[in-house]
């Protein structure tokens, strides 16, 4: 097969019907542009949600899962006996991590760990006059917690230092503070599940941009919460770990679980909803883009079929003068590839332009989320996939008409 001569014929055919070529090209262009916009935007949303979830949650949370689902003593001793025990009371067990502070120190020395924060977390009621709201209060070493969650960046009012100096200080989620109608300096009464009530003073508010956190969470000094729960200073319920590489958390969590015997939960497990949403959005992106490209493919198929019908005399002449089947296939396939390639490249350009415009378009979330414009990410991978998709579609769409062209019987045409 002589490629240059075949290319010359294909080029002449394309240039002879510029309008048709352009329309076929635009079909691919539109499909690819939409694919680029969709995937850039969807992946942007995915990444944004993942990032905000990752930012606000520990990569690994280690805690003591209080589990009362265990057999009674008699059942354990005589598993096959006829045992009747009424109203068995669960054994009293504390949700504490034994030697939690020491564990935290050891975990911190492991390679790949960014920071560790040992804390006491409990449910609490916040009262301000008639307003009663339930939420959580975490007793933390504020400096460590700051290293994990960059609290100083998320402060909406007040200071972090006040929490260190004031044992009655309380750092509240911004929405929670709003609902309680309190500001920095105001007092809130906090009741723990064990019944202890304390008056704490709001020293600051923070916002993660995630409603479930900003609505419920508050921080106090570690010792304050330990006192409120009437526990000793070694009482720790949770250890939060941040890794340098979030993906490492999955295996590291399992190792910690094996090492210390406490239950661990990694960010992927804690954010299943977000990750599931991500998968759904990915599927949707591919379904829509695929549909667009298939439609474009049918457009090309139609146009190529018409071209072959129009050029049937030319095909007969070419065959008579010695062009074989492969040459004929190449002539028409090259036209399809050209349409796919040029339409695809134009589509990438337009897709990039549209995604860029989207990425600078203001997006008002009403303060729910911490973004000002639509989240869009730009990745070379999307553009490569887009171009490959476009090429594969056009090659498939062009192959069958080309095959048909190669089957043309020159005798039937030339005899007239």
């Amino acid at each position: 097969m002589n490629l240059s001569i075949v290319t010359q014929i294909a080029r002449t055919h394309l240039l002879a019907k510029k309008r048709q070529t352009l329309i076929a090209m635009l079909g691919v262009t539109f499909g690819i542009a939409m694919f680029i916009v969709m995937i850039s935007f969807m992946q942007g949303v995915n990444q944004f949600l993942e990032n905000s979830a990752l930012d606000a949650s520990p990569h690994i949370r280690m805690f003591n899962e209080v589990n009362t689902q265990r057999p009674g003593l008699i059942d354990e001793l005589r598993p096959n006996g006829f045992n009747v025990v009424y109203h068995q009371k669960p054994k009293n067990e504390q949700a504490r991590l034994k030697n939690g502070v020491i564990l935290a120190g050891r975990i911190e020395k492991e390679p790949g760990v960014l920071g560790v924060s040992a804390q006491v977390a409990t449910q609490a009621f916040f009262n301000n006059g008639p307003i009663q709201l339930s939420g959580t209060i975490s007793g933390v070493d504020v400096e460590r917690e700051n290293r994990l969650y960059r609290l100083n960046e998320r402060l909406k009012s007040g200071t972090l230092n006040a929490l260190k100096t004031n044992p009655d200080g309380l750092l509240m989620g911004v929405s929670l503070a709003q609902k309680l109608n309190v500001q920095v300096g105001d007092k809130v009464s906090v009741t723990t599940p064990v019944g202890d009530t304390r008056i704490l003073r709001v020293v600051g508010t923070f916002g993660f941009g995630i409603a479930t956190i900003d609505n419920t969470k508050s921080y106090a000094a570690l010792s304050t919460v330990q006192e409120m729960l009437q526990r000793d200073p070694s009482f720790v319920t949770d250890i939060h770990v941040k890794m340098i590489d979030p993906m490492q958390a999955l295996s590291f969590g399992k190792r910690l679980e094996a090492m210390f015997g406490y239950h661990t939960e990694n960010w992927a497990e804690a954010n299943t909803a977000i990750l599931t949403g991500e998968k759904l959005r990915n599927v949707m992106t591919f379904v829509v883009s695929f549909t667009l490209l298939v439609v474009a493919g049918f457009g090309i198929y139609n146009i190529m079929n018409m071209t072959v019908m129009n050029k049937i005399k030319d095909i007969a002449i070419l065959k008579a003068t010695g062009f074989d089947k492969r040459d004929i296939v190449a002539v028409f396939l090259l036209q399809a590839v050209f349409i796919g390639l040029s339409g695809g490249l134009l589509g990438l350009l337009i897709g990039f332009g549209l995604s860029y415009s989207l990425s600078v378009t203001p997006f008002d979330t009403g303060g729910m989320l911490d973004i000002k414009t639509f989240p869009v990410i730009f990745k070379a991978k999307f553009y490569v996939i887009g171009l490959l998709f476009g090429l594969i579609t056009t090659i498939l769409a062009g192959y069958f008409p080309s095959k048909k062209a190669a089957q043309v019987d020159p005798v039937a045409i030339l005899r007239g």
Partner: protein
Amino acid sequence: MTPVLSASRLNKYFYDPDKFHVLRDVSFDVQPGEFLSIVGKSGCGKSTLLYLLSTMDTEYEGEITMAGTRLTGRDGDFLARFRNEHLGFVFQFHFLLPEFSTLQNVMLPGLKLGKYPAKEVEERAMEKLRLIGMADHARKPASKLSGGQQQRVAIARALINDPTIIMGDEPTGNLDKANSENVFSIFRDLASKGQTIITVTHDPDFAGGTDRIIEMSDGQIISGH
């Protein structure tokens, strides 16, 4: 002298709509340099015979040998290459590729053969166009030429690879008298230079000017041996 083409006991059937015996035991030889015409009434099978010889129709019984190569039973790619190198065609209706220039039309089979570099193919094509008096129109799009001019360019195209045989299916069938004579004189001229030519025609003037006439009737050769 060994014949340049020999057909032996060719039989061909049409099956649509009914089985029909088009060619019955057709055998003949063509010597190098012969200017041969095949004549006969419409439907006598002369065009069918030509398309068997052209290697484009491969459904027949019998045997065709051309330029020392047995062509019966060969695959499509081999035959395409053979046509490209050894055969030149001039058709009745379809002359040139309309989107290409006159020169490109002549060059295409030469470029396909790839025996000479493109530059040389172009020179040779110009030479063939001069031969038929169409050199002035080399750069014109083929669609801008008249029917007679197109047919002359088609002859130049048939000549580009110095074929063993030129085959014509009613090469003057669609032309007026002046153009017919022009085309015939080109053929005559080529024949005098030793080119083997086989044409199917029902133009008695054309046939009368050839070296040898094969007359067919009802799928059989009735005279010309």
